[in-house]
């Protein structure tokens, strides 16, 4: 088979290209653990950390529909605490400060550009646009 060297080298190039994301990132230095700003004053979260990490997107969508479409402006949480449904007022101003200290931290790290909340919603002063 005359083409063997050509086929094998082509295969090698293909394998190299298709595994590029893995060995390219492995070469980069290990990144530090993400520091997320927690609210200084507030003690109780809307939900436990594991849930928020997993499902904050769905929760935000549910909050959005609850407030905009159903007109219910509050969300009761465990322990009797009632949260005002407001991305700017509650999520940021009351709890997590600014999008730069919170939302953007993880989103920038993983290169997530999808969420376009800030096209419309106000980000409190002191955060990056």
């Amino acid at each position, binding site marked *: 088979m005359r083409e063997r060297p050509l086929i094998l080298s082509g295969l090698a190039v293909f394998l190299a290209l298709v595994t590029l994301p893995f060995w390219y990132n492995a070469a980069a230095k290990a990144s530090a653990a993400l520091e997320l700003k927690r609210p200084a004053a507030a003690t109780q979260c809307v939900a436990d950390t594991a849930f928020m990490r997993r499902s904050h997107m769905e929760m935000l969508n549910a909050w959005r529909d609850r407030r*905009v*479409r159903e007109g219910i*402006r509050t969300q009761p949480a465990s322990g009797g605490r009632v949260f005002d449904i407001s991305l*700017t007022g509650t999520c940021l101003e009351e709890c997590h400060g600014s999008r730069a200290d919170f939302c953007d931290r993880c989103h920038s790290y993983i290169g997530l550009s999808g969420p*376009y909340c800030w*096209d*419309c*919603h*106000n980000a409190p002063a002191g955060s990056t646009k």
Partner: protein
Amino acid sequence: MKITRTGFLGFLAAPLLAFARPAKRWVMVVQTGKCMQDAGCTACVQACHQAHNVPRIPDARHEVKWLWKERFRNLFGAEAIPAAAENRLALALCNHCDNPPCTRVCPTAATWQRSDGIVMMDWHRCIGCRYCMAACPYGSRSFNWVDPKPYVAAPSPDFPRRSKGVVEKCNFCEERLAVGKMPRCVEACPERALIFGDANDPHSEVRQVLQARFTIRRHTELGTRPSVFYVI
């Protein structure tokens, strides 16, 4: 199955609760005589647009407006208004119709009618097809042809902005009504020309005015049943 006597009576009475407390029905009365027609007062417009981050776009084609002053002949039709009164001004805004054609045509229910009569907008869901604009017989709706951000001079932090590509209109300040406040335009008017309230509440000011004064609405022949009344 055991059921007590009171339980059974309660079960029978439950449907009657629907009639006990009727839902609110928000309406507005524009007292055109009090509105300073030609004096150029636009306090209501400025209050509304400032509070809701309505952009001020120089290109008239791309204008976005929730509330504005319009000539009588354009509001009610040249045939309905005597020539002498043609150029008098009155407010134009979304009429929050009881039978809104705009909500009927929206393909995503991004605009819908609430039980209290307010025609709502969900800017998260709007696909920008502008069918509602074609359906509105009153020209009340505006589209964001460009990104409004550069054209909002002093953004208010208490209300979100909109992105390009969605339709917007007056929302009867539903965010203020929810916390017991009156709409911005009503509060801002120096002549108290705007009366706003629950038409289903027999003791509301708006109900008294509607019973005492003769009012007209825009293009009622279309069957839209608008909620904005004009005292001429």
